[in-house]
């Protein structure tokens, strides 16, 4: 790709920031409405057997990914983790839509207003964003520092 390195970095930064906003928002709304989130997860046809630990894992991983994305050194790892988490969310929605015996309601905040299909499209957009960021992020920061140290 023949993109200006500065432009590339900006795009990657913007995508990272969008992710930071999304995950911070998602995690806070889950934690603020923790009671409701716990109850809703319990009703999920996919996770009800594991809801007791999923209820902590989801917001915790969202927060950890946010932190990774905010530290330049770990930005790439953060992007890969964000991508994986988004894939997991999408897989969850896909399975619910196609294989579940009933479709429950969950998700907090504005995301609650979306239908499951809209939600799936929303997630896929974020997956695409993550892929773009991962592919265009220039030779990562760790390598740059190493090079400078050598010279």
């Amino acid at each position, binding site marked *: 790709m023949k993109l200006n390195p500065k432009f590339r970095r900006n795009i990657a930064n913007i995508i990272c920031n969008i992710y930071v906003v999304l995950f911070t928002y998602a995690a806070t709304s889950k934690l603020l409405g923790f*009671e409701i989130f716990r109850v809703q997860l319990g009703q999920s*046809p996919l996770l009800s057997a594991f809801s007791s630990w999923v209820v902590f894992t989801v917001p915790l991983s969202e927060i950890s990914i946010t932190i990774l994305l905010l530290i330049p050194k770990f930005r790439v790892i953060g992007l890969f983790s964000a991508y994986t988490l988004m894939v*997991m969310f999408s897989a*969850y929605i896909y399975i619910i839509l196609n294989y579940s015996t009933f479709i*429950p309601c969950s998700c907090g905040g504005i995301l609650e207003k979306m239908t499951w299909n809209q939600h799936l499209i929303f997630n896929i957009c974020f997956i695409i964003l993550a892929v773009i960021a991962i592919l265009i992020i220039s030779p990562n920061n760790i390598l740059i520092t190493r090079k400078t140290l050598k010279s």
Partner: protein
Amino acid sequence: MSYKVKLLILITCTVFGFGIIYLLFNLSENIIHYKNKFIRRFPQHVAQEISQKNLTYNSYYFAGTRKGNIYLGNYTAPLKLMILDSTLQEKVVQTIELKEKNLPFESPQIRVFNNHFFVFEGIVPYIFKGNVYDWKASLKINSGYYFSQLEPMDSINMVIRYLTPKSGESLIGTLNLMDTTKVDYEATILQKQFDGIFDTDGNLHFNKQLNKIIYVYRYRNEYIVTSPQLHLDYRGNTIDTISKAQIRLTSIKNTKMKTFAEPPLVVNKTSAVDGNLLYVNSNLPGVYESENIWKIASIIDVYNLTDKTYRSSFPVYHIAGKKMRSMLVSGHFLYALIGERIACYKLKDPIHQNKPASNYFP
């Protein structure tokens, strides 16, 4: 990092993400799905689909049968009644006229019984009554206890599932439209297991031919048969083994809301009665049943109400992935509302056979 490496990691992440969720789903399914220790029998050709009709909307419900015709009400067009002939070929839409129009209507329901019909709503409450010759209804009841289900027993007597004030528990009672002081109820018919709201939920029916009230619990393997005067005949059991409702409730802090802590175990989803038979759409697979049949069909178990026995089972197939929502049996026909469609199944004679299925149990 080259593109190759990046793409490789991306693919690994994708597989990992999907894999974890798929694994969780499968594990959860296995843990949640109840394995039963009972055996159904599926005789061949007990029920066969003979026709189907597209109703365009999925908001229809069964309002009753009369002279072989099927009456369908519509939740979103409450005063329109669709009348179909027994084989779903002809359709007439009838508009009901209410003489009193100044009530807080929310979602009225209709029942057609012999030459009368009733329009009612239990949370107001009100009951209108009219006859099927002019389709004009006048207000009969506009006070009293709230109720959640109503079935006419004749032109003036109704069997009703009341909600007790404050606690909201369900209670079976009767009501006489001519003499509203004659509210009768029997608190011992529905047996509370822990909260009296969810655990006693079920389906109320009146069986014309046997002149009996029948109530099928949703969350336990029991049905109740009583006389129109609410004298208990007997409590029968459906073939599964869930005698205690498996519901865990949780309340959300700082609110008065109560909700399910986990998906409740539904035993009997919906039911229908006709003649001496009770038809129950069960939710629980028995042993020696292929999982596939449960993915493509709703399973109907048939019980004989006169000798309390299980007879046989048959499938009602999903249409375009949609499950049967409710059913109605009239004579030799079973009607099922599935998505936007109605299907008609012809019930063959073996279903009325006299040999109880208990001989087949191990």
